[in-house]
């Protein structure tokens, strides 16, 4: 399945500093300042400002968690003071991402900053999504944002946004991901009428061109049609851990707890 988080993950890994200890004598130039004037030649692109900011944020976040772990070990007043005085990384970085998004407003380069904000700035998530859709409806990376809407509390708002993507995006992948998110929102509601809406979307997805979505749609269709409370559980036939074949239905007449587990 194409994962929608690829751009972000790629950004995270690409932004790792290269710490090369080789041949220091060959390079005696001073370290480049963090902000340098625009490079005159396009052959040597400046370091990507988005990736640089994400890297800085990751370091700040990791530092916060490390210090938090230390404070928690000490507990008591130390922990209280830490939680009172040390804001989480998001608090300082959200305004910086917002500043970049504002500076680049309307340009394609703003999209990654807005996506980051939609993912990390829970308080203003709606505003960031609205900005994305208002100015960047044709951006293919919106495919990676629809999953954020599945657990949005305001169902009606999330569904409206998904409809705008379904109606307005020129990219099939965006539309399919929007369809999946819409189906998941309806399925999560548990409401019988909305389960029917979910089924209709899953049936469309089960025929679509993305194998990962096809599989997920089929799994969800099966769950809606066969695994609801009040339905007879589908039988299972398989081997136990000692290689002996048995069936779930061998235990009819018993109350059965079926437990999907793993030792992790």
């Amino acid at each position: 399945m194409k994962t929608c988080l690829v751009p972000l993950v790629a950004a995270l890994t690409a932004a790792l500093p290269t710490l090369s200890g080789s041949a220091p004598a060959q390079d005696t130039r001073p370290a480049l300042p963090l902000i340098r004037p625009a490079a005159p030649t396009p052959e040597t692109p400046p370091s990507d400002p988005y990736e640089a900011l994400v890297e800085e944020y990751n370091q700040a976040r990791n530092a916060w968690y490390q210090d938090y772990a230390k404070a928690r070990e000490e507990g008591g007043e130390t922990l209280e003071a830490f939680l009172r005085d040390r804001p989480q990384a998001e608090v300082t970085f959200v305004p910086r991402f917002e500043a970049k998004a504002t500076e680049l407003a309307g340009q394609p380069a703003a999209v990654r900053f807005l996506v980051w904000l939609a993912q990390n700035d829970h308080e203003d998530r709606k505003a960031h999504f609205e900005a994305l859709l208002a100015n960047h409806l044709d951006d293919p990376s919106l495919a990676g944002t629809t999953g954020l809407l599945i657990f949005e509390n305001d169902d009606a708002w999330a569904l409206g946004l998904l409809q705008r993507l379904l109606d307005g995006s020129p990219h099939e992948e965006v539309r399919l991901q929007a369809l999946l998110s819409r189906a998941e929102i309806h399925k999560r509601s548990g409401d019988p009428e909305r389960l029917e809406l979910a089924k209709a979307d899953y049936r469309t997805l089960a025929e679509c061109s993305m194998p990962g979505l096809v599989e997920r749609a089929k799994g969800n269709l099966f769950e809606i049609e066969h695994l609801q409370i009040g339905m007879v559980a589908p039988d299972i036939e398989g081997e136990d851990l000692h290689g002996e074949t048995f069936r779930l239905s061998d235990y009819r007449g018993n109350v059965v707890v079926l437990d999907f587990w793993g030792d992790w």
Partner: protein
Amino acid sequence: MYPHERSLVQRLADEPFALIGVNSDPKERALKACEENDITWRSFWAGPEGTRGPIPRQWNVRGWPTIYVLDAQGVIRFKGVRGEAMDHAVDTLLAELRK
């Protein structure tokens, strides 16, 4: 998790009750976990594909543990119950059976 399920199985040893697992570990690890944690109940093995094996895939399992509670007729009656809620679900269905 293991201690709770162990005590449930022990408490209901003489009742028409079964805890049936579907295990998604590599087999050796699953057997080791059973031995180390005194897991006496039976499990289907999900196979070498683990969490993407045929049984979890058919049941659309995307989080672990996933729990279903079935009555004596094999009807799904509760989903996702853990801890005390699992005890309560099982006791409710056993009481129905005694009526």
